[in-house]
Protein backbone atom coordinates (compact mmCIF):
# COMPACT_ATOMS: atom_id res chain seq x y z
CA UNK A 1 0.00 0.00 0.00
CA UNK A 2 2.85 2.35 0.87
CA UNK A 3 4.24 1.99 -2.64
CA UNK A 4 1.00 3.34 -4.10
CA UNK A 5 1.06 6.36 -1.79
CA UNK A 6 4.67 7.10 -2.70
CA UNK A 7 3.87 6.81 -6.40
CA UNK A 8 0.84 9.08 -6.05
CA UNK A 9 2.97 11.66 -4.26
CA UNK A 10 5.71 11.43 -6.89
CA UNK A 11 3.31 11.88 -9.81
CA UNK A 12 1.47 14.72 -8.08
CA UNK A 13 4.77 16.44 -7.34
CA UNK A 14 5.93 15.99 -10.93
CA UNK A 15 2.72 17.54 -12.23
CA UNK A 16 2.87 20.51 -9.87
CA UNK A 17 6.52 21.11 -10.60
CA UNK A 18 6.43 21.17 -14.35
CA UNK A 19 2.97 22.76 -14.46
CA UNK A 20 3.81 25.89 -12.50
CA UNK A 21 7.32 25.97 -13.93
CA UNK A 22 6.04 25.94 -17.51
CA UNK A 23 3.53 28.74 -16.88
CA UNK A 24 6.11 31.10 -15.48
CA UNK A 25 8.90 30.36 -17.93
CA UNK A 26 6.31 30.97 -20.63
CA UNK A 27 5.55 34.37 -19.17
CA UNK A 28 9.24 35.20 -18.82
CA UNK A 29 10.24 34.31 -22.34
CA UNK A 30 7.06 35.91 -23.65
CA UNK A 31 8.11 39.24 -22.12
CA UNK A 32 11.45 39.00 -23.92
CA UNK A 33 9.81 38.10 -27.22
CA UNK A 34 7.39 41.01 -26.97
CA UNK A 35 10.11 43.52 -26.17
CA UNK A 36 12.27 42.06 -28.94
CA UNK A 37 9.49 42.50 -31.50
CA UNK A 38 8.95 46.09 -30.35
CA UNK A 39 12.68 46.74 -30.54
CA UNK A 40 12.92 45.47 -34.10
CA UNK A 41 10.08 47.80 -35.07
CA UNK A 42 11.92 50.82 -33.67
CA UNK A 43 15.35 49.84 -34.99
CA UNK A 44 14.98 47.54 -38.03
CA UNK A 45 18.67 47.91 -38.92
CA UNK A 46 19.79 46.11 -35.78
CA UNK A 47 17.42 43.22 -36.23
CA UNK A 48 20.14 40.59 -36.23
CA UNK A 49 21.67 41.48 -32.90
CA UNK A 50 18.22 42.01 -31.35
CA UNK A 51 17.08 38.64 -32.60
CA UNK A 52 20.20 36.96 -31.20
CA UNK A 53 19.80 38.67 -27.84
CA UNK A 54 16.15 37.66 -27.75
CA UNK A 55 16.93 33.99 -28.39
CA UNK A 56 19.79 33.81 -25.89
CA UNK A 57 17.78 35.70 -23.28
CA UNK A 58 14.84 33.34 -23.70
CA UNK A 59 17.12 30.34 -23.34
CA UNK A 60 18.53 31.76 -20.10
CA UNK A 61 15.06 32.64 -18.83
CA UNK A 62 13.97 29.05 -19.30
CA UNK A 63 16.68 27.69 -16.99
CA UNK A 64 14.30 27.53 -14.03
CA UNK A 65 11.73 25.74 -16.17
CA UNK A 66 14.37 23.21 -17.17
CA UNK A 67 15.20 22.66 -13.50
CA UNK A 68 11.50 21.95 -12.90
CA UNK A 69 11.52 19.55 -15.83
CA UNK A 70 14.57 17.72 -14.45
CA UNK A 71 12.95 17.35 -11.05
CA UNK A 72 9.71 16.04 -12.53
CA UNK A 73 11.63 13.55 -14.69
CA UNK A 74 13.44 12.37 -11.58
CA UNK A 75 10.13 12.09 -9.76
CA UNK A 76 8.61 9.98 -12.52
CA UNK A 77 11.59 7.81 -13.49
CA UNK A 78 13.86 8.16 -10.47
CA UNK A 79 13.01 4.82 -8.98
CA UNK A 80 10.48 5.89 -6.38
CA UNK A 81 8.52 2.66 -6.53
CA UNK A 82 9.83 0.96 -3.42
CA UNK A 83 8.24 1.27 -0.02
CA UNK A 84 11.39 2.77 1.50
CA UNK A 85 10.95 5.88 3.56
CA UNK A 86 7.26 5.47 4.26
CA UNK A 87 5.26 8.61 5.00
CA UNK A 88 8.44 10.71 5.15
CA UNK A 89 9.02 9.90 1.50
CA UNK A 90 5.42 10.74 0.56
CA UNK A 91 5.65 14.20 2.08
CA UNK A 92 9.16 14.81 0.77
CA UNK A 93 8.34 13.87 -2.83
CA UNK A 94 5.28 16.10 -2.90
CA UNK A 95 7.30 18.87 -1.32
CA UNK A 96 10.16 18.52 -3.82
CA UNK A 97 7.75 19.20 -6.67
CA UNK A 98 6.19 22.16 -4.87
CA UNK A 99 9.61 23.65 -4.05
CA UNK A 100 10.98 23.79 -7.58
CA UNK A 101 7.57 24.53 -9.10
CA UNK A 102 6.83 27.62 -7.05
CA UNK A 103 10.52 28.43 -6.87
CA UNK A 104 10.74 28.89 -10.62
CA UNK A 105 8.14 31.70 -10.66
CA UNK A 106 10.33 34.57 -9.49
CA UNK A 107 13.56 33.79 -11.35
CA UNK A 108 11.75 33.27 -14.65
CA UNK A 109 9.88 36.55 -14.45
CA UNK A 110 13.02 38.36 -13.30
CA UNK A 111 15.12 36.94 -16.11
CA UNK A 112 12.33 37.81 -18.53
CA UNK A 113 12.30 41.45 -17.42
CA UNK A 114 16.08 41.62 -17.68
CA UNK A 115 16.09 40.18 -21.20
CA UNK A 116 13.29 42.52 -22.30
CA UNK A 117 15.19 45.57 -21.10
CA UNK A 118 18.29 44.31 -22.90
CA UNK A 119 16.39 44.10 -26.20
CA UNK A 120 15.00 47.61 -25.63
CA UNK A 121 18.38 49.12 -24.96
CA UNK A 122 20.03 47.37 -27.90
CA UNK A 123 17.40 49.02 -30.08
CA UNK A 124 18.44 52.35 -28.61
CA UNK A 125 22.18 51.75 -28.98
CA UNK A 126 22.99 48.93 -31.42
CA UNK A 127 26.71 49.71 -31.24
CA UNK A 128 27.02 48.39 -27.68
CA UNK A 129 25.04 45.22 -28.21
CA UNK A 130 27.86 42.96 -26.99
CA UNK A 131 28.30 44.78 -23.70
CA UNK A 132 24.55 44.77 -23.10
CA UNK A 133 24.21 41.10 -23.93
CA UNK A 134 27.07 40.16 -21.60
CA UNK A 135 25.50 42.12 -18.79
CA UNK A 136 22.12 40.55 -19.52
CA UNK A 137 23.58 37.05 -19.23
CA UNK A 138 25.32 37.83 -15.94
CA UNK A 139 22.17 39.41 -14.53
CA UNK A 140 20.06 36.44 -15.56
CA UNK A 141 22.57 34.06 -14.01
CA UNK A 142 22.35 36.05 -10.77
CA UNK A 143 18.58 35.89 -10.73
CA UNK A 144 18.65 32.16 -11.42
CA UNK A 145 20.69 31.68 -8.24
CA UNK A 146 17.51 31.51 -6.18
CA UNK A 147 16.15 28.90 -8.58
CA UNK A 148 19.34 26.94 -7.92
CA UNK A 149 18.61 27.14 -4.18
CA UNK A 150 15.13 25.74 -4.82
CA UNK A 151 16.63 22.97 -6.96
CA UNK A 152 19.11 22.07 -4.21
CA UNK A 153 16.34 21.80 -1.63
CA UNK A 154 14.18 19.67 -3.88
CA UNK A 155 17.08 17.35 -4.73
CA UNK A 156 17.84 16.98 -1.03
CA UNK A 157 14.17 16.23 -0.43
CA UNK A 158 14.28 13.62 -3.17
CA UNK A 159 17.42 11.86 -2.06
CA UNK A 160 18.37 12.46 1.54
CA UNK A 161 15.21 11.74 3.45
CA UNK A 162 15.81 9.19 6.23
CA UNK A 163 13.73 6.13 6.93
CA UNK A 164 11.34 6.40 9.87
CA UNK A 165 12.92 4.87 12.95
CA UNK A 166 11.66 1.59 14.39
CA UNK A 167 8.75 2.04 16.76
CA UNK A 168 8.29 5.72 15.92
CA UNK A 169 5.44 7.42 17.75
CA UNK A 170 2.54 8.72 15.69
CA UNK A 171 3.10 12.34 16.73
CA UNK A 172 6.71 12.34 15.61
CA UNK A 173 5.75 10.70 12.32
CA UNK A 174 3.23 13.46 11.63
CA UNK A 175 5.36 16.44 12.52
CA UNK A 176 8.43 15.19 10.71
CA UNK A 177 6.46 14.56 7.54
CA UNK A 178 4.92 18.02 7.75
CA UNK A 179 8.41 19.50 8.31
CA UNK A 180 9.42 18.30 4.83
CA UNK A 181 6.32 19.97 3.36
CA UNK A 182 7.21 23.16 5.22
CA UNK A 183 10.74 23.09 3.82
CA UNK A 184 9.41 22.94 0.26
CA UNK A 185 6.94 25.76 0.87
CA UNK A 186 9.60 27.90 2.54
CA UNK A 187 12.15 27.78 -0.26
CA UNK A 188 9.43 27.80 -2.93
CA UNK A 189 7.77 31.02 -1.88
CA UNK A 190 11.03 32.45 -0.59
CA UNK A 191 12.61 32.55 -4.05
CA UNK A 192 9.79 34.49 -5.72
CA UNK A 193 10.72 37.86 -4.29
CA UNK A 194 14.51 37.72 -4.69
CA UNK A 195 14.22 36.24 -8.18
CA UNK A 196 11.94 38.98 -9.41
CA UNK A 197 13.90 41.65 -7.53
CA UNK A 198 17.29 40.66 -8.94
CA UNK A 199 15.70 40.50 -12.37
CA UNK A 200 14.58 44.12 -11.90
CA UNK A 201 18.12 45.12 -10.87
CA UNK A 202 19.63 43.43 -13.93
CA UNK A 203 16.99 44.99 -16.19
CA UNK A 204 17.68 48.51 -14.96
CA UNK A 205 21.42 47.87 -15.29
CA UNK A 206 20.94 46.76 -18.90
CA UNK A 207 18.86 49.82 -19.63
CA UNK A 208 21.45 52.15 -18.12
CA UNK A 209 24.38 50.48 -19.88
CA UNK A 210 22.47 51.15 -23.08
CA UNK A 211 22.24 54.84 -22.16
CA UNK A 212 25.62 55.45 -20.52
CA UNK A 213 28.04 52.82 -21.87
CA UNK A 214 31.04 54.60 -20.35
CA UNK A 215 29.85 53.86 -16.81
CA UNK A 216 29.68 50.12 -17.43
CA UNK A 217 32.14 49.14 -14.68
CA UNK A 218 30.47 51.04 -11.86
CA UNK A 219 26.98 50.03 -12.99
CA UNK A 220 27.98 46.39 -13.02
CA UNK A 221 29.58 46.63 -9.60
CA UNK A 222 26.42 48.18 -8.14
CA UNK A 223 24.43 45.46 -9.82
CA UNK A 224 26.54 42.74 -8.22
CA UNK A 225 26.36 44.19 -4.73
CA UNK A 226 22.68 45.08 -4.97
CA UNK A 227 21.73 41.67 -6.33
CA UNK A 228 23.78 39.92 -3.66
CA UNK A 229 22.04 41.83 -0.90
CA UNK A 230 18.58 41.24 -2.37
CA UNK A 231 19.36 37.56 -2.35
CA UNK A 232 19.70 37.42 1.42
CA UNK A 233 16.02 36.66 2.05
CA UNK A 234 16.29 33.68 -0.30
CA UNK A 235 19.22 32.56 1.83
CA UNK A 236 17.16 32.88 5.01
CA UNK A 237 14.56 30.66 3.36
CA UNK A 238 17.30 28.20 2.47
CA UNK A 239 18.47 28.15 6.09
CA UNK A 240 14.94 27.55 7.36
CA UNK A 241 14.46 24.78 4.79
CA UNK A 242 17.72 23.09 5.81
CA UNK A 243 16.72 23.33 9.46
CA UNK A 244 13.32 21.83 8.68
CA UNK A 245 14.89 18.97 6.74
CA UNK A 246 17.85 18.10 8.93
CA UNK A 247 17.46 19.59 12.39
CA UNK A 248 13.87 18.97 13.41
Amino acid sequence: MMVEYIRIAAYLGAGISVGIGAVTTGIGSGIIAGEGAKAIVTQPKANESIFRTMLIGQAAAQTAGIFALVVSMLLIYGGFDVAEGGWFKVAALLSAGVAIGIGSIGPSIGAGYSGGEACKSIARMPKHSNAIMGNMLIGQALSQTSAIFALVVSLLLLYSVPNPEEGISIGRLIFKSVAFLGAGLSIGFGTIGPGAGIGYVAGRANNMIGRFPDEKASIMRTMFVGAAVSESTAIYSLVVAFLLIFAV
Partner: protein
Amino acid sequence: MENITLAAGIVKASALLGAGLCMGMGALGPGVGEGFVAGKACEGIARSPENASLITRTMLVGQAVSESTGIYSLVIALLLIFST
Protein backbone atom coordinates in the same frame (compact mmCIF):
# COMPACT_ATOMS: atom_id res chain seq x y z
CA MET B 1 13.12 8.10 21.72
CA GLU B 2 10.48 10.29 23.31
CA ASN B 3 6.88 9.30 22.91
CA ILE B 4 4.83 12.03 21.28
CA THR B 5 1.07 11.78 21.26
CA LEU B 6 -1.10 12.49 18.24
CA ALA B 7 -2.32 15.85 19.54
CA ALA B 8 1.16 17.10 20.41
CA GLY B 9 2.38 15.88 17.03
CA ILE B 10 -0.30 17.85 15.20
CA VAL B 11 0.52 20.98 17.20
CA LYS B 12 4.21 20.67 16.39
CA ALA B 13 3.40 19.85 12.77
CA SER B 14 1.34 23.00 12.33
CA ALA B 15 4.11 25.03 13.97
CA LEU B 16 6.64 23.66 11.48
CA LEU B 17 4.33 24.23 8.51
CA GLY B 18 3.78 27.72 9.82
CA ALA B 19 7.52 28.28 10.02
CA GLY B 20 7.96 27.27 6.39
CA LEU B 21 5.09 29.44 5.20
CA CYS B 22 6.24 32.35 7.37
CA MET B 23 9.75 32.43 5.96
CA GLY B 24 8.55 31.76 2.42
CA MET B 25 5.94 34.50 2.32
CA GLY B 26 8.07 36.83 4.40
CA ALA B 27 10.87 36.64 1.88
CA LEU B 28 8.57 37.80 -0.93
CA GLY B 29 8.28 41.45 -0.04
CA PRO B 30 11.87 42.23 0.97
CA GLY B 31 13.21 40.43 -2.10
CA VAL B 32 11.20 42.54 -4.52
CA GLY B 33 11.76 45.70 -2.50
CA GLU B 34 15.52 45.33 -2.23
CA GLY B 35 15.68 44.53 -5.92
CA PHE B 36 13.80 47.76 -6.65
CA VAL B 37 16.23 49.74 -4.48
CA ALA B 38 19.24 48.21 -6.22
CA GLY B 39 17.76 48.78 -9.67
CA LYS B 40 17.17 52.44 -8.94
CA ALA B 41 20.69 52.70 -7.50
CA CYS B 42 22.08 51.37 -10.80
CA GLU B 43 20.16 54.11 -12.57
CA GLY B 44 21.44 56.75 -10.19
CA ILE B 45 25.05 55.69 -10.56
CA ALA B 46 24.74 55.71 -14.33
CA ARG B 47 23.31 59.23 -14.28
CA SER B 48 25.72 60.75 -11.78
CA PRO B 49 28.81 58.56 -11.46
CA GLU B 50 30.64 61.08 -9.29
CA ASN B 51 28.30 60.30 -6.38
CA ALA B 52 28.88 56.56 -6.66
CA SER B 53 30.00 55.88 -3.10
CA LEU B 54 27.17 57.98 -1.64
CA ILE B 55 24.61 56.14 -3.76
CA THR B 56 26.04 52.75 -2.84
CA ARG B 57 25.89 53.61 0.83
CA THR B 58 22.31 54.84 0.56
CA MET B 59 21.41 51.69 -1.32
CA LEU B 60 22.89 49.43 1.33
CA VAL B 61 21.23 51.30 4.21
CA GLY B 62 17.89 51.27 2.41
CA GLN B 63 18.19 47.59 1.70
CA ALA B 64 19.13 46.87 5.30
CA VAL B 65 15.99 48.68 6.47
CA SER B 66 13.71 46.96 3.97
CA GLU B 67 15.25 43.65 4.87
CA SER B 68 14.13 44.01 8.46
CA THR B 69 10.75 42.42 7.71
CA GLY B 70 12.61 39.47 6.28
CA ILE B 71 14.60 39.25 9.50
CA TYR B 72 11.36 39.39 11.52
CA SER B 73 10.10 36.40 9.54
CA LEU B 74 13.37 34.58 10.12
CA VAL B 75 13.13 35.20 13.87
CA ILE B 76 9.53 34.02 13.97
CA ALA B 77 10.35 30.94 11.90
CA LEU B 78 13.25 30.04 14.19
CA LEU B 79 11.00 30.54 17.24
CA LEU B 80 8.36 28.30 15.70
CA ILE B 81 10.92 25.61 14.93
CA PHE B 82 12.81 25.55 18.18
CA SER B 83 10.52 26.75 20.97
CA THR B 84 7.25 24.93 20.44
